[in-house]
């Protein structure tokens, strides 16, 4: 490096520093909350290989918030939702979440998506006392109130889901051969752990894994066929559920498929498989869910209206219901956090169990538990319609607790779907 280039770079550094100073803004006493707005943010993949299937969630949440804002907001405040693309890259997540917290000064981070991505920021958010609400991942990791007091889960965790699905499968097809195809990460491992809890150590005739970087599951599906598998559990994301079913069809291998909710959304699967063949391949397809879901449900009708009006009528799928349900839950938390919400009052509202959400099972939030849904209902596809199987709702825990049927009512829609204190 020459003397001159050095001085130029010095100027550049100084300029950077000056830009930094200029961008400093005066901090507010309660970050993200003003007289008439509350600003929250999220990180989610909008680009890159993982964006397919996820990018529509944040748009749905935003549409719900727009609906709330147009109807007077929560306690007189509009909810501003800042969506940051992290491309499912944990390094980018670190950067954009710091940007949300330090530059945009958000009140809370909600529905940060992905286990590896959110793992990169969960420490940071807790160290900085930022509420980290409704993480969009089924990892059991988010339910650790002692380690991560600010972090609250949203999805039913993979173990709970697997235990419920395995119980249903065992009751429905007691004499069949069970197998599993799982992603080669925590998702697959946790899900398989849950299956083994119910089915026993020798309950799975074949355990296959796939890697997202190899878009070919012929060898795995072939192995399941060869092992005589009749009921196949899937710990797969939507794309690989479609790939597994398509591959099996090509091999003329007929089996019962039972998928985690992470890879069991009918409209999304139709997107992958095509509208012509999807109803055939997906006939009898079993999955689970914990949100309002039935085509004739009042919540679903409301969300469809909101989707048409505030989301340009984007194709309606489970992701839209999911995104809007997250929005509803946050709005409810905000409503319960008082007229002048603070980060403490927000977390308190969650921990005293004041929230109902809009799921089919009660929320589990308390001082001891940061898990949202500790149970799921079983869904099945029949003639192109995915709906709950009547009376098949199970609750359980992430450990070796029993799986019990749940008979309570789902949370009913009240008024216009805007929570009040």
């Amino acid at each position: 490096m020459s003397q001159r280039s050095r001085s130029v770079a010095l100027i550049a550094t100084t300029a950077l520093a000056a830009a930094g100073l200029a961008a400093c803004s005066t901090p507010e006493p309660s970050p993200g909350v003003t007289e008439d707005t509350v600003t929250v943010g999220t990180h989610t993949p909008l680009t890159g290989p993982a964006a397919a299937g996820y990018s529509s969630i944040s748009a749905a949440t935003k549409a719900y918030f727009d609906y709330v804002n147009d109807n007077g907001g929560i306690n007189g405040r509009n909810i501003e939702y800042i969506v940051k693309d992290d491309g499912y890259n944990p390094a980018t997540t670190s950067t954009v979440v710091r940007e949300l917290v330090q530059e945009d000064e958000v009140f809370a981070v909600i529905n940060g998506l992905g286990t590896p991505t959110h793992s990169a920021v969960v420490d940071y958010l807790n160290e900085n006392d930022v509420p980290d609400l409704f993480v969009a991942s089924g990892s059991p990791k988010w339910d650790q109130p002692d380690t991560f007091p600010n972090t609250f889960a949203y999805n039913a965790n993979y173990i709970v889901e697997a235990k419920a699905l395995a119980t249903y499968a065992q009751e429905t097809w007691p004499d069949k051969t069970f197998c599993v195809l799982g992603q080669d990460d925590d998702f697959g491992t946790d899900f398989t752990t849950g299956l083994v809890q119910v089915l026993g150590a020798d309950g799975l005739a074949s355990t296959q894994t796939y890697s997202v970087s190899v878009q070919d599951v012929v060898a795995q599906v072939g192995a399941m066929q060869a092992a005589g598998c009749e009921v196949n559990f899937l710990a797969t994301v939507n794309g690989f559920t479609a790939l597994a079913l398509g591959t099996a069809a090509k091999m003329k291998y007929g089996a019962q498929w039972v998928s985690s909710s992470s890879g069991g959304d009918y409209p999304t699967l139709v997107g992958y498989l095509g509208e012509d063949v999807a109803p055939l391949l997906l006939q009898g397809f079993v999955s689970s869910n914990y949100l309002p879901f039935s085509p004739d449900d009042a919540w679903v009708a409301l969300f469809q209206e909101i989707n048409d009006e505030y989301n340009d009528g984007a194709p309606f799928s489970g992701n839209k219901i999911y995104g809007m349900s997250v929005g509803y839950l946050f709005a409810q938390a905000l409503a319960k956090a008082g007229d002048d919400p603070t980060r403490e009052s927000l977390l308190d509202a969650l921990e005293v169990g004041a929230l109902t959400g809009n799921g089919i099972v009660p929320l589990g939030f308390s001082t001891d538990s940061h898990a949202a849904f500790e149970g799921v209902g079983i869904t099945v596809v029949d003639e192109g319609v995915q709906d709950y199987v009547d009376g098949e709702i199970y609750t359980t825990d992430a450990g070796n607790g029993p799986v019990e049927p749940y008979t309570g009512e789902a949370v009913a829609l009240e008024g216009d779907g805007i929570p009040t204190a």
Partner: protein
Amino acid sequence: MDRLVFLLGTGLARGAVLALFALALVLIWRGARVVNFAQGAMAVVSTYVAFEVTSLTGSYWLGLLAALLAGGLLGFAVERGVMRFASPASPLSGVILAIGLVMVLQSALGILFGPDYRPMRVPFDDRAIVVGGVPLLSPYDLFVLVVAVVVMGALAVLFRWTSLGLQMRAAAFAPEVSRLLGVRVSRTVTVGWVLSSVVGSLAALLLVPTSLGLNPHATDSLFVLGFTVAVVGGLDSPVGALVGGVVVGVAMSLVTGYLGAGLVPIAVLVLLVLVLLLRPAGLFAAAEARRA
């Protein structure tokens, strides 16, 4: 035994596509001494063209035709518009320009079409023919194999017996001398790019319907695998591409079947390292090319 037969069949079908893609890399290498890192991204652009045309007209074959045309045009445009800036003295400048092109094409596709996977249909039954309880190749797999062999044969004829093919080979090996002998080197280079881009597009078009679907990143892994095939077979050798494709396809299938899908990228890396260290010019390279 059944399992082995099944895995070999699967590997063969996958290998044919890899071989075609590798052939595209070989074509450019022979024509311009460039490894085209943008081959995958260019092919995915043509595949989007096919997808749009097929959606509009309902005809797979029109889509195929459109993709091949688009591939040719794109090859021409890339050679004239981007690659001509590559410094003739440096293999790196070509690589870097191609990387820039990958970024431009993939992000542009992302902006235009979004990140969703789109399903693509095939013109034949893609359900496997079951022989003795073992699902073997499907009619579609056979179609892919036939296409690969026909393209391979046509190119062999081109390079061996036509004046254009001979000129291309001459221009690639000794551009200065060829120029003195009256070969229009810049034209043969352009032809090489067009041909290569057409073949690459064809490979992507055949592969995408068997994978997750069409997405801006649909050919990411195809490129690395195709590159491995080209290196295994020798960047100079079309026959090597065919054999390399089958070797890599079958190896991948066996690794997935017996060791696990997660090991495939590692196996590819190991194969690449071994071939590069033990036989850098590939298994089928002509002797004079070995110093590459």
